[in-house]
């Protein structure tokens, strides 16, 4: 199978879908020229022309707001936030409008709107260019939330997203763009609400998202050498969340560690731990542990940034802590 980059997988998904469906319109800051600052829309202008993809002014609120208006009137809107941090300018459009319009109109509005955004720390971009905001969008009903951790999922999930009739937060990770993975040549999609078991194991369940899946896999390698067999679950979509796969795993292992890069308080780790406690309380041999960035903004200094990002070592020791709990 061909091995391609995560950013290429995104690009391929966009191009293939735009070929399939002439109602897709792409817009965002600098998306035309050179395919944006991360190259994810490279070649789209050349193939589809200026009526299918457009540079916008620096105006995040109207990018998403016009996304809502376009989607409401029959365009499949695929809009980009250059960094997820900038969506904080457009939360009215995202949460008051996009997330609620279908409900507020009693189910009459149909809103095929995908908001692609790149998020995450790891590149020394400082507190305003390194956030992970998925928990906010999970909290507010009406949005689906997608977080692919590899090129295969990125492509398959984005194709699903573009075909969905709901507003979707599609979170790519800046550190993952250059990672590579196998992606089949032919057409495929990855369904929403279906977690992927990235590694089968029996001793402990690790639930990890996005970049953290890679860290968890590394940790599992180290743990394996010490005779600890971790199961790694990547939910892939947080809304809808595949509770079944998580719960079955925890019922098997009795112990769970959740790893995410966003802050802990009211994060997706708290939510998944809640679900585990609710549905697998009697199977739990230890409290669910979470490993997250510190409850502080992301620091610029590379030393401090490395300290806050959940590391392989922290995952290894977190797993041991959970296993040693009697």
């Amino acid at each position: 199978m061909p091995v391609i980059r995560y950013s290429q997988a995104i690009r391929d998904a966009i191009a293939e879908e735009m070929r399939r469906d002439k109602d897709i319109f792409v817009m965002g800051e600098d998306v035309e020229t050179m395919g944006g600052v991360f190259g994810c829309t490279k070649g789209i202008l050349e193939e589809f022309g200026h009526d299918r993809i457009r540079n916008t002014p620096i105006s995040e609120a109207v990018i998403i707001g016009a996304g809502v208006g376009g989607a409401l009137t029959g365009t499949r809107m695929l809009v980009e936030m250059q960094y997820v941090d900038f969506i904080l300018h457009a939360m009215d459009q995202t949460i008051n409008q996009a997330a609620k319009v279908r409900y507020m109109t009693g189910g009459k509005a149909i809103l095929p709107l995908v908001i692609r955004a790149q998020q995450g720390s790891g590149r020394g971009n400082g507190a305003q260019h390194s956030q992970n905001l998925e928990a906010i969008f999970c909290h507010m009903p009406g949005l689906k939330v997608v977080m692919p951790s590899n090129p295969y999922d990125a492509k398959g999930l984005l194709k699903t997203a573009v075909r969905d009739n709901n507003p979707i937060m599609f979170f790519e990770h800046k550190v993952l763009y250059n990672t590579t993975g196998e992606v089949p040549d032919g057409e495929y999609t990855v369904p929403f609400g279906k977690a992927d078991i990235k590694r089968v194991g029996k001793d402990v369940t690790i639930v990890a998202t996005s970049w953290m899946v890679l860290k968890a896999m590394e940790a599992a390698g180290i743990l394996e050498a010490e005779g600890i067999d971790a199961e790694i679950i990547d939910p892939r979509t947080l809304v809808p969340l595949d509770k079944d796969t998580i719960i079955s795993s925890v019922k098997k292992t009795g112990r769970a560690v959740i790893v995410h890069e966003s802050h802990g308080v009211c994060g997706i780790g708290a939510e998944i731990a809640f679900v585990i406690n609710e549905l697998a309380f009697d199977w739990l041999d230890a409290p669910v542990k979470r490993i997250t960035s510190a409850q502080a903004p992301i620091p610029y200094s590379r030393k401090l940034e490395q300290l806050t990002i959940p590391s392989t070592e922290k995952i290894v020791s977190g797993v041991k802590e959970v296993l040693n709990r009697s």
Partner: protein
Amino acid sequence: MPDIKIPGRESLLKIYEQMLRIRLFEQKATELFTQGLVTGSMHLYIGEEAIAATAGVLLRKTDTITSTHRGHGHCIAKGGKTDRMMAELLGRKAGYCGGKGGSMHMADFTEGNLGANGMVGGGLAISVGAGITNAIMKKNDSVTICFFGEGATNEGIFHESLNLAAIWKLPVIFLCENNLYQVFTSVKESLPVKNVSVRAASYGIPGIICDGNDVFELYDVLSSAIEIARKGGGPSLIEAKTYRWEGHYTGDGYAKGGYRSIEEVEAWKAKDPIARLGAYIIKNMIAERGLLEKIQKDLKSEMEKAALFAQESPWPDDGDLCKDVFFERQV
């Protein structure tokens, strides 16, 4: 100079009827509100009817509008049925949004009403998106009228929306209903310029002022803006000067706490667009008084029926609470 566009007999009568429909609808709704049948708050359009009603006759069914918290008039003008509107106000299943939206979210996609909005300025970006669909994607000649108050022109989204619409020459008519107040705050405190229309210069688009209580001026100005937009000439900003007769929301005294003087309100009431057009119609023998009286009588009975329809409509089912959060079937 381009020709002045003048509404014909049919248009004038339609505008008259729609203005009256709006007013009577709101009067009836106020009655139900007073009886405790409507929850939340309702923002009345009474006094400003000429704007929506005139826009309404100029739009095609395939054209769209975005509306505001003060949206009953826009909804009616774009073909909204008063019985389903009334049912929505009462939170019933037969309402336009199945009772889930209420006054501030009244929407009717089949008639091209993309919805009222609880957020001041909420319709601005949506209208830009509709413009993208029409001009760039479907390449048709449909237009969108985006209604908003002068208060909304101080929101950042006003700026971003007009800016993008201007750059891409989108077929949107930004129609500002300047009623001189935002809740209890006067334009004198909140606008550093005398006329909202000057803001058009920031986007290189036409900015036009008109008397929002004068159907003829509205008709002329809106016709031109719509024509420009249909022909690919891009957006316009139109400022219609008007006044709301009632309080900011129902239940609120119209000059409560002295933020407006009673004289000011009375002076504006003297400019009642309905009475004005009625007098014109009769004076110019466009129709006889009898016809206008019949229109009024019919509308009154329409409102009685609407109120009855609403009150007899069933409540939403318990199961509706968690429905409609997502579109369920995948394409």
